């Protein structure tokens, strides 16, 4: 008989609001504090080790990080993050491959992965101003790229 992931996920994450949207796609919500434990559970109990990617999102009233894990099925662990305190525990100690995605999200959305060993810029140029995050919804593209020379002229 086929392994029933939905049931298993519900027992493993009793307060995780497990959803199934389509074939082989499962979604779980966890609070930021339980993220690392949830990932460990997923890894140790279900053997899902491959982190496909981390999606950082601006939901306007909050941020959301979705950790997409894939094995036989795709399990997405979503974490809601406060807008005022954009911090989330880093997955780097649990999964090495998470580093690169966390850096990207830190660059573009300004969500700080606490405990990440190396938060240099990865995508934005060095002269990009601090505290401007292009993927946030309040960043309007029509303003255009920030001109690094503006300061010198003023």
């Amino acid at each position: 008989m086929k392994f029933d992931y939905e049931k298993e996920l519900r027992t493993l994450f009793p307060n995780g609001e497990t959803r199934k949207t389509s074939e082989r796609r499962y979604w779980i919500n966890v609070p930021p504090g339980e993220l690392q434990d949830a990932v460990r559970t997923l890894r140790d109990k279900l053997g899902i080790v491959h982190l496909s990617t981390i999606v950082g999102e601006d939901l306007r009233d909050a941020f959301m990080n979705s950790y997409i894990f894939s094995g036989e099925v795709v399990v997405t662990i979503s974490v809601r993050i406060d807008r005022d305190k954009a911090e989330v525990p880093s997955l780097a100690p649990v999964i090495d491959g998470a580093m690169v995605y966390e850096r990207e999200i830190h660059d573009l959305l300004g969500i700080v992965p606490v405990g990440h060993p190396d938060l240099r810029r990865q995508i934005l140029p060095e002269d990009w101003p601090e505290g401007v995050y292009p993927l946030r919804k309040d960043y309007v593209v029509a303003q255009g790229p920030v001109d690094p020379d503006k300061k010198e002229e003023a």
Partner: protein
Amino acid sequence: MAENTIKIPVGPQHPFLKEPCKFEFEIKGEEICGATIRMGYNHRGMEKACEDRNYYQCLYLLERICGICSHSHTTAFVQAVENLLELEVPKRGLYLRALVCELERLHSHLLWLGVAAHEVGFDTLFMYTWRDRELVMNILEEISGNRVNYAINTVGGVRRDITADQRKKLLEISTVLKERLAYYANIGTNEPSFIARIQGVGKMSRERAIEKCAVGPFARASNVDIDVRRDDPYGIYPELEFKVITSESCDILGRVVVRVLEMVESCKMIEQILQKMPEGEIAVQKVPRRVPAGTAVSRYEAPRGEDVHFVRSNGTDKPERVKVRAPTLCNLEAAAESVVGSYVADIPIAIASIDPCFSCTDRMTVLLNDNRRGVRVATWEELRRHGVDWYRQNKGIRF
């Protein structure tokens, strides 16, 4: 920085990099003892740009993420959108998608094989594989109208059908390629000077590959048995027979072998697709413009590995968030790590062994020429002058 080491910058412009990315290698004599990566030189703001466009415009934008695996990104995207719309795509459409996908894999791997040979100075193999790649490029042009950026995908199916004539040509090409591929497999595993450069170089153990979440041929060459086509079957792949090629050698030789054998599998798949392709519609006739709110994750086995698209829709005709994760991103760090301990001469081939595609990896900064707000794209002359002035002021370099 350890003692007696010098840092050599590789990139953003360097002959072995076909696209910009910066590596900094710490070397001691000829041996490498450290590597750091800086990406972002190709960041075009596509994910942000997608939020301002409707799904069809996004499709054309995403097509242009990368020239080599353009079909991968659009397929992954339309799969996600179709999932949200709960569309049932006609079988023939799915078969055509898979056909273009396998052709793309062929041309991408042939390109890679040539580039890899060029990185180790084996230009003869480079010329041969690129010659054969033209066969694939020509048929792709005939099928889709374009050599790259095929624009054959649309939400709910594909835009063009193939003719009987093209079908015949495809079969011919598949036969020719299988023969040539056997020859390349022979060269790749027997030519002593080529083997000397790729055997035991760029080692990446199975454990590290899993930890680093490596994907695609790079991971498969480290004996990680993953292939989205089999593990998370999409489209018509459940109906096709194919082997997932893995290698236990964990080095560049393994990556060459995996890719060459994968191409043979692709040829076989193309034959199966042409054989099994049913008649009928190629696309859903009426596709709603508005996509119901929801989220979808779509995975796709691009030539370089797993391509993931995440789409969040908000009930309008524009997506709320599109996230693209190209395969190079997860392999790049692993590749840089695999170089440590080998020689400077191994840098190009080791980095190239993941088939890096930086325009996929960096996606996002929109170029604007908006006169009303006084923002414009700098001309070449202005850029040059700016660069000269900047260096004169800040670095005291006189030109």
